[in-house]
């Protein structure tokens, strides 16, 4: 009996202890207060783990009346919390700070293989979908202007856009959409109006040369626009915006459908604007008097078919139509594009990608509704790519080749003739990770161009050292740009001012680019200002030879005097990029980007494109979900541009400020208000690179995520 009694007594003492497990409940949210679904919550007391549900909530039992937990979620800083309140009805709110360095985001541009940003040995600037939404930009030109210092778009004659990035002209910057080149040109690059942002998932910018991976034109940098992918059953967004500058209207619609093995994305955007008079009609000092209006229609379709578990087929098509209304005529721009891509994961460690791409960009002029045929232009590109990647543990071998047929007919050739060129290349890259803190990527590529019978061999060596929260990156990269068909065969009477002649003996431009960068990321805890920060500094040096430019042509028996294309040596560009960002859990964010640029030798200095030694962009904002249906974003951003280094009469220093207010007022409904040029800056004289502003302007827009109405 005594034994039985003792056993009962012990059981009576132990049972309460066993059943005294405490239940803790919590809800994981981001810095705006939105729930995070799928976050991992791990108890540091007993190792148990839970995953948050669709409402961001979790619960689990711990034997103690306090629980120490660790919460992690991709894109956010892992954080530790102590829960004290184990009342079953209490839900503890746990806010994670976003990892603004986005170190775990996967990028593809720097190495042509998917790689986490933290592991990329070349500094890559990532502009996320959220950044794009906050900028409320219509096209890539608007977005980059706001996001990057050292980059400037300006007008050129006939109001074509001219680009300068870190001292390089637009021809030295390669723009890609999902890794594909674009046909056609305006002043010195592609038609940026084609690159609207409605269905863009992110933009990756790699400054410095990348020709060892991308070939021609990747001399000063690569901008890769990546289309958003969506696996929701359906998603529909319609949006509209009015902007007082030019009485511009912009309307867009984006439809995603996903069912079984097939998904589709259809995007349509239409915009229209009126001509804005910048100056008095009799202003003889200003180079630019009007910002011409017009309209543009952009339609894109993308179909993805998961043919097998390891085989994905992607088809895409696009149509673009822009009309620019000039004083006595209208210029029309048309583009038709299409492509097919197959991504085959042969084995877990082997991947093969094959693609074909077609792009046709046409220009024509109309007077009084009649096509004049004196400004006809057509550029057609057929491109085939092959890319093979083999992973050896942490290391990867990438090899590939490209073939391109480039056809150009233009009024700038003799009698509107046509010329074509074939180019082909092979490249190989090895991504070597011998130690957890060391990464070395070596690439080499050879490109051949049929028309100039030239080839260009380029290489890149990039290394990265990781030390705790510091990363050091150092790289050498070669760049080149082959002479274009226009530069080889031009025979153009420029508005009766002078003749410009092509030169079929041109050599490719060549550049050598050295980069050294230091990045530090971290987070602040336990205070009102708890959050994360990222600081990056990059020093760069570029030596640029055989740059293609024009020189005086004295004339001969068959050709009158004018200008002729030639090669010129000795451009030197060096400088510093600095970026500091901070985002607090409370919703406050601060960002500052600065660029110092020094150019020497025969630097790029035209009346249209002039390097500015100092430039800066900044943003201070507050982003918070106030309740389940209301989210507030308010920000003040700006940019400063110093007076350019130039031998021309040029613009002075100026700064522009912008106020943005975005509100999600109900499920899926966002209302935007932007006041641009807050302090009413107006240039005294409008040079080609002056801000094309007449003072303070505003815009208002609405965006409806229709699918959210039903969630």
């Amino acid at each position: 009996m005594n034994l039985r009694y003792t056993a009962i007594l012990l059981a009576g003492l132990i049972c309460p202890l066993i059943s005294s497990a405490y239940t803790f409940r919590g809800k994981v949210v981001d810095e705006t207060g939105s729930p995070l679904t799928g976050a991992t919550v791990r108890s540091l007391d007993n190792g148990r783990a839970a995953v948050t549900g669709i409402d961001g909530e979790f619960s689990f039992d711990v034997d103690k009346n306090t629980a120490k937990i660790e919460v992690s979620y991709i894109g956010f800083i892992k954080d530790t919390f102590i829960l004290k309140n184990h009342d079953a009805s209490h839900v503890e709110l746990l806010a994670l700070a976003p990892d603004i360095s986005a170190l775990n985001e996967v990028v593809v541009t720097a190495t042509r293989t998917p790689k986490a940003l933290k592991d990329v040995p070349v500094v890559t600037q990532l502009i996320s979908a959220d950044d794009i939404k906050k900028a409320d930009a219509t096209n890539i030109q608007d977005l980059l202007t706001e996001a990057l210092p050292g980059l400037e778009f300006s007008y050129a004659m006939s109001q074509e856009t001219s680009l300068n990035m870190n001292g390089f002209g637009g021809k030295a910057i390669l723009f890609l959409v999902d890794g594909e080149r674009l046909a056609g040109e305006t002043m010195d690059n592609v038609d940026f109006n084609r690159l609207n942002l409605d269905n863009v998932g992110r933009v990756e910018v790699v400054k410095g040369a990348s020709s060892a991976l991308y070939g021609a034109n990747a001399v000063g940098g690569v901008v890769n626009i990546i289309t958003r992918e969506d696996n929701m059953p359906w998603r529909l967004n319609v949006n509209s915006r009015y902007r007082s500058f030019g009485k511009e209207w912009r309307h867009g619609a984006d439809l995603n459908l996903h069912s079984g093995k097939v998904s589709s994305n259809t995007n349509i955007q239409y915009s229209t604007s009126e001509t804005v008079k910048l100056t008095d009609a009799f202003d003889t000092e200003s180079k630019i008097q009007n910002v011409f209006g017009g309209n543009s229609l952009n339609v894109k379709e993308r179909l993805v078919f998961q043919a097998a578990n390891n085989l994905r087929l992607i088809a895409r098509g696009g149509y673009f139509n822009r009309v620019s209304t000039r004083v006595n005529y209208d210029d029309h721009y048309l583009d038709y594009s299409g492509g097919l891509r197959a991504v085959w994961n042969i084995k877990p460690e082997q991947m093969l990608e094959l693609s074909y791409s077609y792009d046709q960009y046409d220009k024509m002029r109309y007077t009084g509704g009649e096509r004049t045929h004196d400004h006809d232009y057509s550029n057609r590109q057929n491109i085939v790519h092959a890319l093979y990647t083999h992973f050896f543990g942490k290391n990867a071998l990438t090899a590939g080749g490209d073939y391109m047929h480039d056809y150009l007919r233009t009024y700038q050739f003799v009698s509107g003739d046509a010329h074509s060129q074939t180019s082909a290349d092979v490249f190989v890259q090895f991504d070597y990770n011998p130690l957890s803190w060391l990464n070395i990527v070596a690439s080499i590529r050879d490109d051949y161009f049929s028309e100039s019978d030239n080839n260009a061999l380029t290489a890149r060596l990039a290394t990265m050292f990781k030390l705790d929260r510091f990363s050091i990156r150092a790289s050498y990269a070669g760049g080149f740009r082959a002479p274009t068909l226009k530069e080889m065969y031009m025979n153009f009477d420029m508005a009766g001012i002078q003749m410009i002649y092509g030169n079929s003996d041109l050599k490719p431009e060549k550049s050598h680019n050295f980069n050294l960068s230091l990045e530090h990321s971290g987070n602040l805890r336990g205070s009102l200002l708890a959050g994360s920060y990222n600081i990056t500094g990059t020093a760069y040096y570029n030596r640029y030879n055989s740059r293609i430019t024009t020189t005086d042509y004295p004339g001969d028996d068959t050709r009158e005097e004018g200008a002729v294309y030639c090669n010129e040596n000795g451009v030197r560009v060096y400088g510093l990029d600095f970026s500091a960002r901070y985002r607090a859990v409370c919703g406050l964010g601060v960002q500052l980007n600065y660029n110092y640029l020094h150019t020497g030798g025969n630097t790029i200095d035209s009346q249209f494109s002039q390097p500015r030694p100092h430039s800066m962009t900044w943003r201070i904002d507050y982003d918070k979900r106030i309740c389940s249906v209301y989210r507030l974003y308010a920000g003040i951003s700006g940019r400063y541009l110093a007076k350019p280094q130039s031998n021309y009469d040029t613009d002075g220093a100026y700064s522009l400020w912008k106020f943005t207010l975005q509100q999600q007022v109900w499920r899926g409904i966002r209302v935007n208000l932007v006041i641009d040029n807050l302090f009413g800056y107006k240039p005294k004289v409008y040079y080609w690179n002056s801000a094309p502003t007449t003072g303070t302007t505003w815009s208002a827009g609405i965006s409806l995520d229709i699918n959210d109405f039903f969630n």
Partner: protein
Amino acid sequence: MKPIKFLFATMIAVLALVTLPSCSDDNEDEPAVPAAKAIAGTYAGDMECSVMGSASTFENLSFVLSATDDATVTVTLPAFGEAPMAMPSITITGVKVTEVNGISTLATTEYSGQTDSGKSYTCTVSGTVSDKTLDIKFNLQYGAMPMPMICSSTATKQ
């Protein structure tokens, strides 16, 4: 109320009697010439033109102002320049004229038209005429030229 109305009407009538003869006195010797007709004629002078900030001078050109009604003139700008930058004569119709204290002002007027050869042009013109001297300036966007020509002249009546 009636006496007040009567008084007011009487005052107006007296005022009219006093002022009307005085107007008549001013123009007793010379009947008024409408502003447009007063400045109509041919004016000659040199012209300076600026294209993208670079200036050129063209000598001894003739500008013609023809009155289409009392307050409107047609401005005919001279042909100038040499091939391939030769500009034909351009006509701008419907330019309103006002006269204050002997100075006639040609209202800033934008006009689009076509030359005899079918080239489109858009021109904004403005000017004044005083003491038989025409100060005229115009912004001419001719054909497919991407930039405007901004010209000015001081010309005297022939």
